[in-house]
């Protein structure tokens, strides 16, 4: 599973205080409750190659019993040509069963994506580089980490401030925390975004860009996931640090998530259907609460 050079043992972390977040890292299956928010997260997927199709088949297999109705796309949704035929081969075909079943894809833009993807209807971006939407008690914020200009920063701040949902989840392409050696953490973005995330109580952040899976230990109370291997893969690229809670870089992967009340269950699944990471996160008490 994990590269032999960097074996990571599963650990159990117990919350020290009532108000702080706790993380149970022992494998936990998704409870699959009827009233929960269920979604999948894929990043760097749009290669059109066999592995992307394999991952998509795994997603369909999981969807048969775990009926997620949302897929968040973490950028680099398309590689190479981006003609209409490419959109068919690299998106509509691999995910056809999910699209037919009514699963909604909500994309964010990566550095390999053409700017006009914001207008591609199945990505549901409605022409916006950054936007927000809700599912149950979860508010999602899809950001454009390519162009983090002052206007977007002001928008993020006001959108987070106005959000009333229990969970605030942000996702964008470039990870604020990553221990893959190819790209690593985007420190310039971290300096801009982390203070805003902390101020307004963001709970979880998903990113792609590094073609691995990594779960980061909570950083100042916020959970970070890198899931950039739903099509692309950089085998052996992980260099786990003391920030790394779990990592997988031997095969493509995606993440499925269930948010039920104050708990977020997650499962990272490989291209071959193996569970490479799972756990549950208890919602942090927000600074803005």
């Amino acid at each position, binding site marked *: 599973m994990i590269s032999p050079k960097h074996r990571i043992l599963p650990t159990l972390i117990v919350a020290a205080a009532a108000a702080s977040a706790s993380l149970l890292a022992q494998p936990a299956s998704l409870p699959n409750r009827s009233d929960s928010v269920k979604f999948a997260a894929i990043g760097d997927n749009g290669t059109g190659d066999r592995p992307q199709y394999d991952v998509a088949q795994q997603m369909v297999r999981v969807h048969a019993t775990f009926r997620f109705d949302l897929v968040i796309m973490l950028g680099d949704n398309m*590689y*190479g040509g*981006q003609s209409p035929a490419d959109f068919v081969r690299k998106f509509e075909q691999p995910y056809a069963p999910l699209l037919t079943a009514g699963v909604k894809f909500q994309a964010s*833009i*990566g*550095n*390999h*994506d*053409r*700017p006009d993807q914001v207008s591609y209807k199945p990505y549901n971006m409605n022409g916006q580089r950054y936007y927000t939407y809700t599912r149950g008690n979860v508010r999602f914020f899809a950001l454009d*980490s*390519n*162009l*983090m*200009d*002052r*206007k*977007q920063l002001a928008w993020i701040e006001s959108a987070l401030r106005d959000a009333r949902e229990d969970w605030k989840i942000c996702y964008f392409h*470039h990870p604020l925390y990553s221990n893959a050696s190819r*790209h*690593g953490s*985007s*420190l*310039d*973005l*971290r*300096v*801009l975004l982390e203070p805003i995330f902390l101020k307004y109580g963001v709970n979880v952040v998903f990113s792609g860009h590094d073609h691995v899976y990594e779960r980061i230990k909570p950083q100042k109370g916020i959970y970070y996931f890198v899931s950039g291997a739903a099509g692309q893969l950089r085998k052996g690229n992980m260099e786990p640090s003391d920030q790394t809670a779990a990592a997988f870089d031997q095969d493509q992967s995606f993440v499925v998530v269930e948010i039920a009340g104050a708990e977020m269950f997650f499962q990272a699944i490989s291209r071959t259907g193996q569970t490479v990471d799972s756990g549950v996160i208890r919602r942090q008490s927000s600074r803005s609460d």
Partner: protein
Amino acid sequence: MTEAPPRRIRRWRATFPRLSRFALEHLLLLPFGASIALVWVNAAPESYYRVTYAMAFAVNDVAMMFFFALMTKEVVEATAPGGVLHPWRRALLPMIASIGATAVPALMYLRVIDALEEPMLALAWPVSFATDIAVSYFVARLIFRLHPAIPFLLLLAIASDTLGFVALALFDPTRELHLVRGILIMAVAIGVAAALRRARVRSFWPYLVAAGGISWVAFFLSGFHPALALVPIVPFLPHAARDPGFFVDARATARDALSQFEVWWRYPAQVTLFFFGLVNAGVPLHALEPGTWGLPMAVVAGKPLGILVAAGAALAAGLHLPHKVGWRELIVVGFTTAIGFSVGLFFCTALLPPGQLHSETSMGVLLTLAGAPLAIFTAMLLRVGRFAR
């Protein structure tokens, strides 16, 4: 009796002190700031970003106003008798050449970026227009000494940068333009500057504070980059009847408002360039991605090619190249004008907010400094300028 040193040594001694003075006064602080930025961002990136982001607005949107004002001052003086822009017909061929010097690199940049599969970087195409006038002038003087290619290069660089500023204003991916608002406020600024000129106000301070202040507000509220706010105001400052020379510093005893403006702001502008380099040139080494190479490849290949193509079209239309300027000199000029450095960094920062795209493009701008050794090497190969036999 001791023999006089050979003529070429006497010439070098005569040239070198002036060039070294020019380098000291115009070229050192920006690279110094950029060097500190490069070391700092790679040693302690979070602290670098935290400090420089806090300074960015003051440096890029306010202080840089004075640097561009001084550049405008050079251009304004060049329109006076004795200047490279006088009469205006002299500028015609370089202006035509600048179309080639900008269009060809931009098209090549887009093609290279497409081949590298980095479509988001296509937003930075105006950066390919940029030429660092001061560094290019310094390199050109090293190669050509006092050659007709020098004024040609200066005019070409000015025209290319002007086209770049226009492209920046029209194609900025993140700014929304509010033209009506900007034009109305700008009209007030121009009115104030014109009134001061008509009243023969000799001090530059009213132009700077009153007209310049209103102009800054106009630029800021309209969506155009406010660092250019003094560009439309500087031409209203009364100036000397003759151009003392491009990059020739005004005397402290000069009486005209434009010269006094330069005397007052010359060194603060250099300090501004230090901070500009510090704030904008901090590029982490891991920003050296495939997309980084798009810009240097496009300008190093595209500028000489574009100039040759455009000059060829101009010649076919009946225009003439300056005396002693042929295709070999044009190629060397092309490599020299590929150096983007300060203007390239400015375009990059104006177009791209912090993030990977900005880092990759900034790294590409720094790599355009390769135009300098390329120009010198090509001049040696083609026996151009001081290497001519």
